[in-house]
């Protein structure tokens, strides 16, 4: 019984001795993760996203495990495992080689200098530094695990996150297309177009296109939406068609009045609406020319006007109301209540004007009527039998001319022939006109001062001698006509005889 117990204890002891090393080996051969432990923590962005990338150093604990080898040898092995192939392995700062297949086994002398430092480096990766827990036993292996991490694992750029939409847009499309689009008074482009990145609010829009009436409106923009602006432009009213009239005159520079409005002087081209228009041309010394012109749309027509020399003028006589006016002994009218009488169409030249009224002395004078001019005559009447009222101070003009004998008119009233002295002239400006046959009429304005005799010496210019107009020789056609007529008369006479 005692022997059995001893044997059992021995067997159990042997079993225990045999099992324990194997169990230790299995337990110590725990591998640690070689993948880098990188945690990218991205918090939910508010406005500007904040991204934190805390990188935790890998908690790789170099563990050396001594594997029992063959006894009696001086060499042992240090096996360096690395997660990146091609990494350089240094023992005591001496390059031992590079890892391949995840491992580099370096043979070391067990009795030599112990390995104090193991460094594993790789370009672009972190450097791992450690030391073996112990030197390997002869023929044994010591395992070292090194984990290196990429240096670029920390994101350096802010990841793109979609911010909350806070703007809107306006899409403008006009009908017809191509309209210029303005927003808040500023030009943005031509339709169709989209105006993006607009804050929410109201915008003043305008679309303009040549030939169309502009469209304006307010458009509301909301965040995240595209507001439509679809203006339909209406055609502008078509301009009325017009025609043109080119007006020329002889002589030139005649004033042109169309439908009563002054347009300018000839030569002149006017643009008018279609229809009948009244043209009046005026030029001093010439009769007014009046005509109606029918203007047609899109047509240009010419209106050449040859103005005739004026032969008639207008007279405005001022006197007391009710007085009778005679011209060359013919009664022509009565002074109106306003104190004047206007007579048109009076032939140019000298006329004897007489103004009479009951109880007044007759006013009689010779008046020169200028053509195409309004001639103003003052005919003051003095009551009969009444001593003349004191007259206002007057002055005189001593008029002489070269040659002498010229008919003299002062304020259109005939006063005699030069040389002469005209008295009783009111102070102020007076129109003096000298006329003599063969000489050009001389007209001037002179100022008379009360109580003074003003000399006025004038020289008349000889009128140009009219060039005799050559009688045109009868042309051959005219001669033939005359001959034919004579032949016809002769033939007729012969037949009658």
């Amino acid at each position: 019984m005692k022997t059995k117990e001893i044997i059992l204890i021995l067997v159990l002891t042997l079993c225990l001795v045999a099992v324990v090393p194997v169990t230790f080996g299995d337990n110590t051969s725990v591998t640690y993760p070689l993948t880098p432990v990188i945690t990218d923590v991205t918090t939910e962005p508010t406005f500007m996203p904040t991204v934190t990338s805390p990188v935790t150093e890998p908690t790789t604990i170099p563990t050396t495990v001594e594997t029992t080898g063959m006894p009696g040898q001086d060499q042992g092995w240090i096996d360096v495992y690395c997660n990146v192939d091609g990494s350089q392995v240094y023992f005591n700062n001496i390059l031992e080689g590079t890892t391949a297949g995840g491992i580099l086994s370096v043979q070391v002398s067990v009795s030599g200098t112990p390995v104090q430092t193991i460094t594993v480096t790789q370009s672009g990766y972190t450097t791992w530094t450690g030391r073996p827990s112990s030197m390997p036993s002869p023929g044994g292996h010591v395992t070292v695990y090194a984990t290196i991490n990429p240096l670029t694992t920390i994101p350096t750029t802010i990841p793109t996150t979609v911010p909350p939409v806070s703007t809107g847009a306006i899409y403008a499309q006009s009908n017809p297309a191509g309209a210029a689009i303005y927003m808040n008074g500023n030009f943005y482009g031509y339709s169709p177009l989209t105006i993006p990145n607009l804050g929410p609010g109201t915008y003043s829009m305008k679309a303009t296109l040549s030939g169309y009436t502009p469209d304006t409106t307010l458009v509301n923009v909301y965040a995240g939406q595209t507001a439509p602006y679809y203006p339909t432009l209406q055609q502008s009213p078509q301009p009325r068609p017009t025609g043109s009239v080119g007006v020329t005159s002889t002589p030139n520079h005649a004033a042109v009045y169309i439908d009563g409005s002054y347009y300018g002087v000839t030569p002149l081209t006017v643009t008018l609406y279609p229809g009948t228009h009244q043209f009046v041309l005026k030029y001093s010394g010439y009769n007014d020319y009046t005509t109606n012109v029918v203007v047609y749309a899109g047509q240009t027509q010419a209106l050449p006007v040859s103005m005739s020399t004026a032969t008639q003028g207008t007279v405005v006589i001022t006197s007391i109301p009710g007085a009778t006016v005679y011209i060359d002994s013919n009664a022509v009218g009565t002074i109106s209540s306003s104190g004047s009488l206007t007579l048109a169409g009076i032939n140019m030249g000298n006329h004897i004007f007489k103004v009479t009224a009951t109880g007044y002395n007759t006013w009689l004078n010779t008046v020169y009527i200028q053509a195409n001019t309004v001639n103003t005559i003052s005919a003051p009447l003095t009551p009969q039998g009444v001593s003349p009222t004191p007259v206002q101070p007057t002055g005189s003009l001593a008029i002489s001319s070269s040659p002498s004998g010229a008919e003299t008119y002062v304020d259109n009233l005939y006063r005699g022939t030069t040389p002469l002295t005209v008295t009783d002239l009111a102070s102020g400006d007076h129109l003096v006109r000298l006329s003599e046959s063969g000489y050009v009429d001389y007209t001037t304005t002179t100022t008379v001062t009360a109580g003074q005799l003003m000399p006025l010496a004038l020289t008349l210019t000889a009128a140009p001698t009219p060039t005799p107009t050559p009688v045109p020789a009868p042309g051959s056609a005219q001669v033939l006509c005359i001959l034919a007529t004579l032949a016809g008369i002769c033939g007729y006479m012969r037949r009658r005889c």
Partner: protein
Amino acid sequence: MAQNCSRTTKCIAAAIVAVVIISALTAFAYYKSNETLKNTAQWGLESTAGVMATQINASEIQDLKPGDENTPQYQAVAAKLRNMRSMDDHLLNAYILKVNTTDMSTSFLVDDLYPLDPSGSAKIGEVYNPPDKREILEALSGPTASPAPYTDQWGSFVSAYAPIDDSALNSNGNTYAVLGLDVSADEYTSVTDQDTWIILSGVISIIVVLGLIFILGRKAAADKT
């Protein structure tokens, strides 16, 4: 008795019909007339503002900054506004507003009353919060007018606005500023209330018609008896 009731009923019915017809016609005529008067007044103001705006060159006002109220440049623009405004006695004030298109705020650039009343007028850069801001915004694109009288710190007005374009600054015809015109609210109301006679004539017509119906009804009743 039955005949009297029938006659009375007919008179009442005729009166009601007459009142309804006359009232409807009067209301329609008044509405149309009032609308036309308002539109006419607003169009007139818009046209005036539009024409005045064309007379202002953006280059005349682009350099104005706060504190420049007494510079010859400001005085010249103010005088020009005042001269144009003086053509119509109803125009109380003419001014130029600058609209900041970023935040749509409005500030004064020129007030034609400033040379005459510096203390009671708006200065350059003075922010204005107009009751009719919508019309001012719309005036960046074209002439507009207040749809109805409004009241601000200076009184009650109806205003017209028109864009001053910067074509003189060689652009695409962008709007540089907005010209404003003020008309007294009383003046505006006196114009738009000219059609009150329509209501008066409608009331008189109703009275006359009712009277006639009453008299004729009584006469008919008397003839029957």
